[in-house]
């Protein structure tokens, strides 16, 4: 069997760690709070503190740095693009030229800030998914959405759709990796500089990927039907979520971290 050469972003990594054993509701809420903090913290100091918090979380989760690096590496292009666009589009003091574009000091600084914020956002999502199994994540989501069920919202279905979508990210990345290697194996070049040629070059990847995705969705639907899946009605759970002391400590840690970061970023804390 062909296998992936690097972990896909969001691929669950079972490790015996404190962070893994936390209640998924705390991890989910903490991550959402962390992301909110990223946008609320308006300065470098706040962002740096959140970055330190992310390092601490990764250490507690015992996720190898090389694993995190490889799984988030594909997003580097996005970060570089963000930085570049800001650097050449924001008005300000000119510090250089890049072709027809003027690079400004303000643009470089703002671009670096946005790229750092985006990078932490990606790391935060990856850290959550790496340390939380899809089943646990679904349980947590459905717990938070439960009140909406009283007004007729299909909460369980929404949770399972979101969970499956997340679960399919590594699967699709595996397929992308396999398709690229296989198409190159028969002499098809999948890189080009000219936009039209690039479009032609990605067709051998995009079309089979669509076909495979629909086929996998079909297989999954059949598998669910054959296992008598009927949504959340009357469903029992083997694993019960229990809020324990360590979960309370983790929740407090998340709130303190984000609160301090926002305070530092906004200048409320000297």
């Amino acid at each position, binding site marked *: 069997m062909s*296998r992936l050469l690097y972990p896909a972003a969001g691929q669950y990594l079972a490790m015996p760690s404190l962070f893994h054993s936390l209640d998924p509701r705390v991890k989910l809420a903490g991550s959402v709070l962390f992301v909110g903090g990223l946008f609320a913290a308006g300065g470098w100091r706040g962002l740096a503190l959140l970055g330190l918090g992310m390092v601490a979380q990764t250490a507690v989760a015992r996720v190898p740095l090389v694993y995190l690096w490889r799984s988030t590496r594909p997003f580097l292009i996005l970060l570089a693009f963000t930085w570049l666009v800001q650097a050449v589009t924001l008005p300000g003091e000119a510090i250089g030229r890049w072709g027809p574009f003027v690079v400004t000091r303000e643009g470089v600084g703002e671009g670096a800030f946005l790229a750092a914020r985006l990078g932490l956002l990606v790391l935060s999502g990856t850290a959550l998914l790496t340390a939380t199994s899809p089943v646990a994540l679904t349980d947590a989501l459905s717990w938070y959405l439960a009140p909406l069920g009283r007004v007729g919202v299909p909460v369980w279905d929404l949770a399972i759709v979101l969970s499956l979508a997340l679960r399919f990210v590594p699967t699709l990345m595996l397929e992308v990796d396999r398709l690229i290697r296989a198409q190159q*194996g*028969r*002499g098809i070049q999948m890189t080009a500089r000219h936009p039209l040629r690039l479009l032609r070059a990605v067709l051998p990847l995009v079309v*089979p990927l669509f076909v495979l995705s629909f086929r996998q969705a079909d297989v999954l639907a059949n598998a669910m039907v054959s296992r008598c899946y009927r949504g959340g009605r009357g469903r029992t759970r083997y694993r019960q979520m229990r809020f324990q002391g360590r979960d309370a400590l983790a929740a407090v840690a998340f709130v303190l971290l984000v609160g301090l970061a926002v305070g530092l970023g906004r200048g409320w804390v000297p």
Partner: protein
Amino acid sequence: MLARLEGVSFVYDARMPFAQPALHAVDLAVEAGEIVALIGSTASGKTTLLQIMAGILVPTSGRMERDASVAMAFQRPEDLLYCASVREDVEAGPAFKGVEGVALQRRVEASLGAVGLDPVLFAGRSSLDLSVGEQRRVALAAILAAEPHLLLLDEPGAGLDGEARRSILAGIVAWVREREERALVFSTHDLDEAAGADRVVLLANGRVTAGDVPVEVLGRPQLLADAGLEAPLAVRLAVDLGFSLPAPLNGPSLGRRLTRRAPFVGRAE
């Protein structure tokens, strides 16, 4: 020499706590004109070895040298079909390399013919309208159309019936034999298929435990059992009954040019 591997090892997820060794100090050389079968149980390292030979994976240690153009078909190559017609799919690889006109037309016809598809009947059809077996043939024709010197196929007949597997492989072997300085390396779980190769390389837990003419590998039930494989029925019967078997052990020959037949006496031990 088209390809040579010396002491090649490979580890997936190297430098991680869950690193998984796949190959250990593999030595292998492939000569022009050779048909080599890789056999071994699931997860024995066949696909990894093929990908290293294709240059897709870089060995963790050891050396791989290749003096040939290469093309590799992964398992389920029909997943790669993406064009509106069979012709376009088969043309895609060589067209990217700048082959065009009559030369391209000839390649398409020769490739489709090699896998048992009539170009007149199939070239204009959509790949999506074909059966899985026909799609497999089209996908393999697309690999052949690249005209590589070293052709690497990962279980080309997986999931197909015995007759389809044999006819596809026989056609590809004939395609390789008809051209100079070509070689084929294919992995398979079907030991009858492997019996038709010039050389059989047996992998067990990422190590090459045997590499010889088919009769020397497939005719040794204990060696195969140690690698988690069951010897072909003909061999097991011969050993049980104390008979000897001529090579090829079973099934139709793949028309090999090299006939290095080792003396074989299959007696009960």
